[in-house]
């Protein structure tokens, strides 16, 4: 009987403790929510105060500019196909910047990830150094690197390409080293036992395991890089962004050109997005083995 009584005695305690815990948790999440709301509201007030135009006034003008652009584009709709055609070379330049930057960044990230993963690195002591290098590469805004390089090399696609490639190497290096950590080390040990060099161990033991993930992240990065390359064009690095800025600074009268560029950029991003997401699905979910 005494055995049965004991749990019954403890029960009110347990129940009270549980309720107290729940109350405390609710209080904490309520407080967190409150702090969040206050931060958002005051942050919004500060940003609104420091902005040139206020939110309330701007909100009503939001559609003015798109309306102007659409109106002018509609007026000159007959010339639209010719305009679109005219900007194809600029678009190709933007795509080339993104593609080459992704390619170079891919190889850079590959190398950086291998030398900064525990168990794979040829010089384990230097792992923190390579990690910090990747952190800095990721933290540097492309626009800054591009502008500095434009000062040295003159304007053109190369500064933008280098800027994006550096960032890509840092970003992919981090992702890839996370992938590498999940790689099975047995093939590497096997290769080591037959006297394979570091390069051979990586090429035959690690890369085949991680390649699908690498390619999938690389494709995602290519998507991101197209946007980045358009933005860098806007500050003078060539490509479609540069054309956009020219037509924007001209203002009313050239808005049909701006509209054409908007349409091209939008379509490109959507198409690449769709293609790469299909490819990525195939890569990560595996495809049936071809005969």
């Amino acid at each position, binding site marked *: 009987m005494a055995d049965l009584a004991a749990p019954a005695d403890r029960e009110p305690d347990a129940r009270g403790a549980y309720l107290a815990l729940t109350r405390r948790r609710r209080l904490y999440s309520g407080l967190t929510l409150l702090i969040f709301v206050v931060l958002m509201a005051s*942050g*919004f007030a500060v*940003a*609104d105060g420091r*902005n040139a*135009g206020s939110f309330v006034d701007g909100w009503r003008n939001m559609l003015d500019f798109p309306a102007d652009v659409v109106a002018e584009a509609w007026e000159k709709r007959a010339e639209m196909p010719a305009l679109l055609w005219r900007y194809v070379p600029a678009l190709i330049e933007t795509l080339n910047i993104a593609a080459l930057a992704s390619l170079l960044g891919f190889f850079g990230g590959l190398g950086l990830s291998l030398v900064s993963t525990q168990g794979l690195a040829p010089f384990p002591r230097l792992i923190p150094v390579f990690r910090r290098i990747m952190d800095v590469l990721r933290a540097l805004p492309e626009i800054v690197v591009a502008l500095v390089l434009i000062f040295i*090399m003159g304007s053109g696609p190369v500064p933008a390409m280098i800027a994006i490639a550096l960032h890509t190497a840092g970003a992919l290096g981090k992702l890839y080293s996370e992938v590498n950590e999940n790689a099975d080390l047995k093939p590497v040990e096997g290769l080591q036992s037959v006297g394979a060099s570091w390069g051979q161990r990586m090429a035959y033991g690690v890369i085949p395991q991680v390649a699908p993930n690498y390619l999938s992240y690389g494709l995602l990065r290519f998507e991101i890089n197209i946007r980045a390359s358009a933005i860098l064009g806007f500050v003078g690095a060539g490509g479609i962004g540069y054309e956009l800025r020219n037509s924007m600074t001209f203002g009313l009268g050239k808005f049909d050109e701006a509209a054409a560029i908007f349409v091209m950029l939008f379509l490109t991003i959507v198409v690449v997005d769709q293609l790469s997401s299909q490819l990525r699905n195939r890569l990560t979910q595996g495809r049936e083995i*071809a005969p």
Partner: protein
Amino acid sequence: MTDAALETPGARHAAAVRRIAAKRRVALAVPAAILAYLVYVFFAFDIPGLAERARLDNAATLVADSYSHKVHVTRDNRSGEITVAKEGERKGTFPPEMEPDWIARDDGGARVALEDGHEVIFGPDNTAVYLHPEVGRIEARASRADGVEIGRAPETLPDWVSYSSARLDIRTDAGRLTMTRSRTEAYRYFFGWELFWFTLDSPYYDRTPAEILFGPRLDEARPNLVGAWADFWGNNVWRHADVAWAMLETILMAFLGTFGAAVVALPLGFVAAKNFTPLMTLRFGARRVFDFLRGVDALIWTIVLSRAFGPGPLTGALAILFTDTGSFGKIFSEALENVDDKQIEGVSSTGARPVQRYRFGVIPQVMPVLLSQVLYFFESNTRSATVIGAITGGGIGLLITQAIITQKDWEEVTYYIILIVLTVMAMDWLSGILRRRLIKGDAG
């Protein structure tokens, strides 16, 4: 290929050979394609022409400026007046009593000691002499009528001297002397950023930290620490207060944009998720909204919004908000489609209303995933906010582009870059900690 076809060993062997041959073709084709692309880009980007356009002297100035500064000793050749100023700027001009001791003024001229025993003498009648310990004297004279004349035959000049009748430029590792018709200027280089802590008009200029902390009052009116802080914060060359505000604005843009987008995207995510919205058209509509928001690039949003709201942090925040609402909507709806129905059933079996079902059956399941995504975006948006700030004109992005465009204040550019990199790395670290806590589930 069916299993039946692979039954005989011969057929298996043939299949294996085919597969290996196919792989070999791919292994050769991929590098070949990459190589062909590189060759194409080499010409499309005009790399050979780049070598001609590249200005390596610009690179040298940039690197030197980023870690050192120079003091200009300038003589106006019309009035004969000599001024000493850091970087030749008005704000860095030394008052006569504070002039450094390597400049000795004498009647109508001055002797400027450079490093390694080099010396420049500003003589009377607009003459100047560069004394090189090994090469000897290089004398020069500027006049309105004849321009710049030098005291030896131009052919005998070393290659670090460039001379024409309009301009003489002597550059050595110890310093530099330039002379034109209107002015003569000697430079001496120093390590470090000039006037970073205090400007010349501050009583704390050129004092050691120990003097400021423990020494007697340098300014009678204020305690040293208070005064030093006020003078540092109000430094009108580096404008530390403005820079801090700009950095804060950038972080604010990222914060408002990211979390605002998350708040907007959460309800929309429910609308776009298959298991919460049975109505096909509604779901389809929400998804197309996300696609549109993402497809219209941040660049276009920035331009459209800055037309309506003008430059500033609010415009940047809204640009991030619009773009990320699309990304979050997609991610959130996918996460919501993967929730476990059992918990929701359990909650509804207790008689919960729909709102309670979401609050207790769904949100606890998806919250850690969603929050960790949001934090991840917050970190990367700190960097994007710099770029957007450069376009709309707000935050540190504006300051850094302005500093780069003037093409002379590279030490400020370096300062801003260091600040940005440190801030982004701090955000990375912070969001990493929070994400790990969320995934482990410590925070309720």
